[in-house]
C-alpha cells in the first residue's frame, strides 16, 4: 500500500519537537498495577531525530473499505445494526503547531454498549452484541478532519483494585507522517464521573491533559433523529521547520 501518488504535498524533513514527558503518564504508575513490572526503570537514550524517526509510513485511502468507519454496521448482519446509543465521533488531527495533518491513518477499538469486548480474554458478564465487532479505521482529509459512526461504549469493571471501573472510552491509534509521532491513546466522554476515579487516567498528572482526552458533546454535528455527536481533536508532535538546516524544503 504505497502512499498516495501524485501528491503535491511539501516534503517534510524536519525533526520533531521534543516530547514533553511530564505531560504524558510516566512509565511507572503504581495505581495501575500492570505498569509495575512493565515500566522501564533506566534513563532513556535521548538524541535528536535521525531520518529513521523523521520518516514514517503513510497509508493511502485506497486501503479503506466502505464500512470501515461505521462500527454500527461493519460487523452487523445484513439489515441489522449494533445495539446502543448511536454516536458520531469527529474531529481533526493537528500537530503542535496547530496545523491539520492530512492522510493520517486512525484506528479505533472499543467495548460494546454493555461494556464487553469481543475478545477471548474478556470475561465480563455483560453479553456480546452479535452485531458489534468493535473496530474501525479512517484516514484524515486534507484539513486533518475525520469522522466515524459507532455506539457509545459502556463502562466496565476490571481486575486492578477490588472494585475498579473503566470510564466509557474509545481507544485510538494514530500514525503521523513520521514514526516518532506514533501514538496510542484513549478518548473519554464529557461528564463521565468515572474518569476522575480511574487509575489509568490518573497516571496523567495534569488535569488539563486529562481534559485534552475528553471529547465534548457537539450538538451542531448531531444528526437529528439518528445520532448524537462528540468532537475529539488529536494532537501529534510538531515538526520543526528545516529552514536553518541543510536543505530549504518544507518552508
Amino acid at each position, binding site marked *: 500500500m504505497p*502512499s498516495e501518488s501524485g501528491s503535491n504535498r511539501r516534503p517534510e524533513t524536519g525533526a520533531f519537537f521534543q516530547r514533553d514527558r511530564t505531560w504524558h503518564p510516566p512509565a511507572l504508575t503504581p495505581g495501575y498495577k500492570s505498569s509495575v*513490572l*512493565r515500566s522501564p526503570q533506566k534513563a532513556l537514550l535521548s538524541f535528536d531525530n535521525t*531520518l*529513521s524517526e523523521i520518516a514514517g509510513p503513510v497509508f493511502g485511502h485506497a486501503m479503506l473499505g466502505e464500512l470501515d468507519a461505521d462500527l454500527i454496521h461493519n460487523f452487523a448482519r445484513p439489515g441489522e445494526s449494533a445495539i446502543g446509543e448511536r454516536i458520531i465521533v469527529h474531529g481533526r488531527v493537528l500537530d503542535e503547531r496547530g496545523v491539520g495533518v492530512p492522510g493520517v491513518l486512525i484506528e479505533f477499538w472499543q467495548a460494546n454498549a454493555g461494556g464487553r469486548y469481543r475478545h477471548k480474554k474478556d470475561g465480563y458478564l455483560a453479553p456480546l452484541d452479535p452485531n458489534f465487532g468493535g473496530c474501525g479505521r479512517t484516514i484524515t482529509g486534507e484539513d486533518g478532519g475525520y469522522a466515524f459512526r459507532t455506539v457509545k461504549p459502556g463502562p466496565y469493571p476490571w481486575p486492578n483494585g477490588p472494585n475498579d471501573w473503566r470510564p466509557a472510552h474509545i*481507544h485510538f491509534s494514530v500514525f503521523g507522517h513520521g514514526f516518532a509521532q506514533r501514538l496510542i491513546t484513549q478518548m473519554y466522554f464529557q461528564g463521565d464521573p468515572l474518569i476522575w476515579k480511574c487509575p489509568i487516567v490518573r497516571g496523567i498528572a495534569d488535569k488539563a491533559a486529562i481534559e*485534552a482526552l475528553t471529547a465534548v458533546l457537539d450538538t451542531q454535528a448531531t444528526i437529528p433523529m439518528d445520532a448524537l455527536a462528540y468532537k475529539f481533536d488529536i494532537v501529534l508532535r510538531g515538526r520543526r521547520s528545516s529552514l536553518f538546516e541543510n536543505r530549504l524544503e518544507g518552508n
Partner: protein
Amino acid sequence: MAQSLDRLKESPSQTAGPYVHIGLTPNFCGIDGVYASDLGSTMVNDRTKGERIGLKIRVLDGTGTPLKDALIEIWQADADGLYNSPAEMRGAADPNFFGWGRCPTDMETGVCAFETIKPGRVPFRDGSLMAPHITLWIVARGINLGLHTRLYFSDEEKANAMDPILARIEHRVRVPTLIAERQGDTYVFDIHLQGEKETVFFDS
C-alpha cells in the same frame, strides 16, 4: 507579559490495554470479515529486493516472563537504505517494500515473528552512515507510552562499532541489549522491560 507561542500540547498517551488486537489485528483475535487481512502482517513479496530474514522478538517483564498481550511495530529502510516515506529526499524506495510491519506477540509463546529483508544503511544527521537497523515500537497493557528502540544485527560488527546512536550509550555494557543474534536466516531479539538486561529505550 510576552506574546504567546500558541502551540498545542501533544495528546497524552494512554495504554493500548489488553485488547489492542481488536483494533490493530482483528483477524488475529477472531474478528473476521471487517478487514480482509491484518494491516502490516505481510512485508515482502516475490519482487521485493534484498536478503530475506526472519525476526523472532519477545518482550519480557521484570520477572523475565514473556508478554503475551503485547504488539510490536517495525519500521525500516529498503535494501538500499531508502525509506518508503514522504520524508525520503534521496530517491524512490523499492515500490515492493513498504517498510512497516505489525505483529502481536503469540498468545502462547510470546514470540513476534516478522518476515522481512535486511535493511541497507541510512545516513545520520551529519551524512555518515548508521549501521543497518530496524526501528521498533512496543505497546501493551501496562505500558503507558509506546516504547521506541532499535534492533541492530550481530553480523554487522564493524558497522555497529561506528554507529553514532550506539556510540551515545554511556554504559557500554548495555549496548548488546540492542543487538539481535543471528541464527541461520533469523535474528533473535529479546526486549527486557526491566532488570539488569533492560533494553535501551529511546527519547527521540
